[in-house]
């Protein structure tokens, strides 16, 4: 059952990721990307990570992509970009196939040892995924978390300063 779901959503994800690059209209590309994000969210759920799935949809599909669509609408890029076929496309396709094979060989090179870490499916079912992530983020990884938030704050201040020079 789970593997059927996985193959279904993985196929849709790959298919829509392909169409992100293929479609001529930026709006259509954006929508295909949203489809990819939703499929990834479903894959997170099958991996017992419901919090990641919800955050994936909320942040990527619900906020970042909406902003991208907003910019596309504001700059009126809605018209299709007509571009002819170039050799760069073929090079890109060839390179990505090679990368796929390299990744595949790297993944298959190791042998699973069966070692189990702290967080298993059982702990997730006992404590809940959200609780585990929250605990890890605010105790073990507090410093990286704070550094990331300061980085974001700097970005926000920078955006305000750049857009409001004379105030």
């Amino acid at each position, binding site marked *: 059952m789970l593997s059927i779901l996985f193959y279904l959503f993985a196929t849709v994800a790959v298919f829509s990721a392909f169409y992100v690059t293929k479609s001529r209209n930026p709006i259509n590309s954006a*929508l295909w990307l949203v489809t990819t994000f939703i499929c990834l969210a479903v894959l997170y759920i099958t991996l017992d990570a419901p*919090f990641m799935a919800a955050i994936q*949809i909320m942040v990527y599909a619900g906020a970042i992509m*909406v*902003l991208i669509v907003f910019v596309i609408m504001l700059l009126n890029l809605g018209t299709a970009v007509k571009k002819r076929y170039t050799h760069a496309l073929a090079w890109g396709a060839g390179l990505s196939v090679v990368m796929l094979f390299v990744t595949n060989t790297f993944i298959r090179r190791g042998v699973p040892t069966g070692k189990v870490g702290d967080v298993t499916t059982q702990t997730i079912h006992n404590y809940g*995924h*959200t609780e585990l992530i929250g605990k890890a983020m605010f105790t073990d990884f507090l410093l990286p978390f704070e550094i990331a938030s300061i980085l974001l704050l700097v970005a926000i201040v920078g955006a305000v300063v750049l857009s409001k020079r004379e105030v």
Partner: protein
Amino acid sequence: MTPEVLSLSNAPVLWAAAMLVKILVAFSVLMFIVAYATWVERKVIGRMQSRLGPTMTGPNGLLQPIADGLKLFFKEDLIPGEASKFAFIVAPMMILAPALISMAVIPFGGDYEFSFQGVSYLMPMQITDLNIGMLFILAMAGLGVYGIVLAGLASNSKYSLIGGIRATAQMISYELAAGLSIIVIFMMSETLSLSGIVAAQQEVLWGITSLPSWMHNWYIFSQPLAFGLFVVGSMAEINRTPFDLPEAETELVSGFCTEYSSMKYALFFMAEYANMVTISAISTTLFLGGWDGPFFGWINFLIKVFGFMFFFIWVRATFPRLRYDQLMQLGWKVMIPLALGNIVVTAIAVLLCQ
């Protein structure tokens, strides 16, 4: 004998049947409320403006929603020649679906106990109890904007485009405010599951045992500011008057749905009212103790939901539409700082009370 919770593992057939019944009942009640919300809205606004509202179709105009539905159903379905066809057709569905899906995680009653073939089961009156319930609702609310954006873009009309751009900016800003304002609820209830939040509100008010026992710890008493921010924020998020800038009839000729006709236009309106019901149900669950109250489970819930819907209609009859810069100022300079401040204060209070 203690009843066991009905689940897929202990009684698969019964579970599936109960699930189907729950989905059907929730969906048809929602659709009924959506249809008759239009009638109530016309009647109430009519009263407030010294008019009568619909009177001709049926007694007191009670058949008006059905007549409207039939009229829209049999109208010609126009698709503008310059519109991008696929997106134009998909957009109304993309706006209605998230509005309906959110109802799946809302508990509309306490556990219902029944016995089947000698075994007694406990059926939760909720379609599914996700342990990330509230995040799921926020995620679906975030997806709701795509319908409006697509409708605005695909129509290939200037009014629709402006409506779409306004909707995007507005929904992004107020999603933040509404989302930040309910974080305090998670801090106090220590769960994201909606049934867990309802259960957390059934203790004695503020933990003071000398108060009468019927005064329950509804979060509206501890978090009145968060309640106000959430209601205003979500009202703006679903483009309800006075925040209906995306469809502003007087300036944008109903904005993103200018080019729509027939059933597609009806879908936009169904989505608006379905969103209204959903927001009322969420506010009820988060702040007013859900199905908790003096009557039987779902009756309390419906009373509170209807109260909220009346409030939304009342607001529509009372306030004029905001200007665009006022809207942005209210969202970013008033509501988000207030919500952040509320989070800090609540965090300190929770830490001290532990």
